């Protein structure tokens, strides 16, 4: 049995806490507190340290899921949480002012994991905010010389989040096969 550590990151309100709560088999550990920065997001609470949840895969391997705070004033937590992580899930809120810039920021912050092809981008609220489209995200990632799958996701739906993890795992397996060859 193996254990893998995965990171959920993305801007404030992208849905990191929601995504982990949607799939965790244990009551997730949350560190949400009152949000005083209402101009940045109207949400009542925000994560200031981490989220933690667990998922067991069908063959018995265990996923340890860590959510980061979204705001860059907590970037020290991004570094701490990335230690030993196998992969990273970058969540995007497509209703935010500049979702493509958000993607660039978080792909860049987690570049060490992302550049070894262990990342996926999940774009949320595409139903109400279809622009920019998935293609634009792929294009923007390509411009950063990164190969990252991008898919639309509703973080509130368990099946959506699990599907995203499955795609990430295929991506990681492919990356490992490539590394073994070279």
């Amino acid at each position, binding site marked *: 049995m193996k254990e893998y550590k995965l990171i959920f990151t993305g801007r404030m309100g992208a849905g990191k806490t929601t995504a982990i709560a949607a799939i965790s088999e244990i009551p997730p*550990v*949350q560190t949400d507190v*009152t949000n*005083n920065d209402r101009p940045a997001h109207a949400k009542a609470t925000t994560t*200031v*340290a981490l989220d933690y949840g667990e998922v067991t895969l069908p063959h018995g391997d265990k996923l340890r899921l860590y959510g980061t705070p979204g705001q860059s004033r907590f970037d020290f937590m991004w570094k701490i949480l990335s230690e030993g992580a196998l992969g990273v899930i970058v969540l995007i809120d497509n209703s935010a002012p500049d979702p493509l810039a958000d993607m660039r920021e978080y792909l860049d912050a987690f570049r060490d994991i992302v550049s070894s092809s262990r990342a996926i981008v999940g774009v949320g609220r595409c139903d109400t905010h279809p622009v920019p489209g998935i293609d634009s995200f792929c294009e923007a990632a390509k411009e950063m010389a990164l190969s990252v799958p991008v898919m639309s996701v509703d973080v509130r739906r368990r099946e959506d989040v699990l599907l995203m993890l499955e795609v990430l795992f295929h991506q990681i397996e492919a990356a490992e096969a490539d590394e073994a060859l070279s």
Partner: protein
Amino acid sequence: MNTIADKDYAAEAAVCQRHVDSLVATHTGIRGAVIATTDGFEIAAHVDSSVSVAKLAAMVSSLSALSEAVSRESKIGSSRDLMIDAESGRLLLVDASTGARKRVLAVLCDNRETLGQALWAVRSCREAILRELEGH
């Protein structure tokens, strides 16, 4: 910018600043203090320029939330104080909330201050702040 701006904030910040200044002024072993919102914004601070207040405020809020989560997980109730005992000093974190307004007071001491003295000073400072802010 790691600050928040609303009407009540200026009055609250002024009260906090006065208490933090006096705490540092009256204790030679207390090097500095920061009062932050629980989501990591500075309200008041008195630290020397080698310390980044913005960063300390964010870190203090993470620590205090983690301490709360660990206490909850261990079934020991709500967390109160947190102490980091380091090589050449200590960092004490205490809750300084009034009603819905959640704050953390963080105090940096060096080894001239014993733990007992530091705790006493920090708690007195907290009580003084709460008395004044609750009176508002």
